[in-house]
């Protein structure tokens, strides 16, 4: 059977502190996954859009840039990815 600890035990604070760190790392992992899923979905959209555009007879500009910016957003989050894309669009 796993062992028990209780408040007041010498180990309690140390375990709680380790647990807090672990929980933080799990939250960070979850956030990274959600950000990666967003990028993945945009890649899916980009590929599908290209097919649709061909089918409907028009050409989409900036679709590669769209995927690239979203790839960068994986590291910094969706909002910053959009901001970066907007800044680049305004660049002369």
């Amino acid at each position: 059977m796993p062992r028990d600890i209780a408040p007041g035990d010498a180990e309690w604070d140390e375990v709680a502190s380790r647990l807090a760190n672990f929980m933080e790392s799990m939250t960070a992992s979850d956030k990274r996954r959600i950000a990666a899923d967003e990028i993945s979905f945009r890649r899916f959209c980009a590929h599908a859009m290209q097919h649709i555009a061909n089918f409907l007879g028009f050409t989409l500009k900036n679709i590669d840039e769209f995927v690239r910016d979203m790839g960068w957003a994986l590291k910094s989050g969706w909002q910053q990815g959009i901001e970066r894309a907007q800044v680049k669009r305004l660049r002369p």
Partner: protein
Amino acid sequence: MNDSRSYLTKAIGWLRSNNPHVTEEQWAKTEEMLAKKAEEASPPTIALIGLTGVGKSSTINALFNSGVNVSHHRPCTQTAQAIEGDLYEYTGRRGTIVVYDMPGLGENLAADERHYATYCQTLPNVDVAIWVIEAPSRTISPIEVALRRLRRHCGPEVVDKIVFAANKIDRIHPGESAWIKQANMPSLEQKETTELYSNFLFESLGSEVSRPKDSIVCYSATRRYNLEVLMEQVGAHAPDDRAWLLGKVADVADFKELVDPRLLAWIQQKQHGDIRGANRDA
């Protein structure tokens, strides 16, 4: 990735502003067709490899159904040549995945040879593979040999879609009795053994896979320990444009449900105390 429609709107909004030459009518049609494509995308497909009893089912339940057993699986009709193991549709709370449940290696040479043929046939067709190993198993050489052969016969991309999942780390040395029940965490000694085991896997499999650090995850399905990292890596090993489908159906069992509420309250109090202290200092 539970609200693909709102992401779809964001994605189209961005492209729309960058493509003023596309008419409103064309955009309306494009949006409609794109939504249809997203709806109709085939369910994610996972190969699950491992010896009997390593915890393959509990791993799938822990990642895709909040840790709750699914009462039955719907077997899929085999369209290709029959494979060893089971092929079934698994429907969790958030959707369906297709699972190829395949035997692990290390029973005997003849069986390993058959299993290897199954991997060659199946792995190229799945989005991601989870190879479940029971920690601290050291029977790794058959896996090394299989990876080397897979790389040669099927290409490196097939090997690079495998996540090596070392389950049951709650039982790792010095044993289950060392697991700290209230925190639902390994003791320091177990943590150290887990790191050693992870290094052992890294050294054994590192030369066969491109991203060994990311491809090896130690966890416990029944204790729900480190599942977020396992799910993250499962997504990271899927094709770029298909990982979101896994995210859409992911329903990772909450590890905190098995933690003593007094510990969670202690942490919350401490965090609030730190914030109040920081505010006072400011």
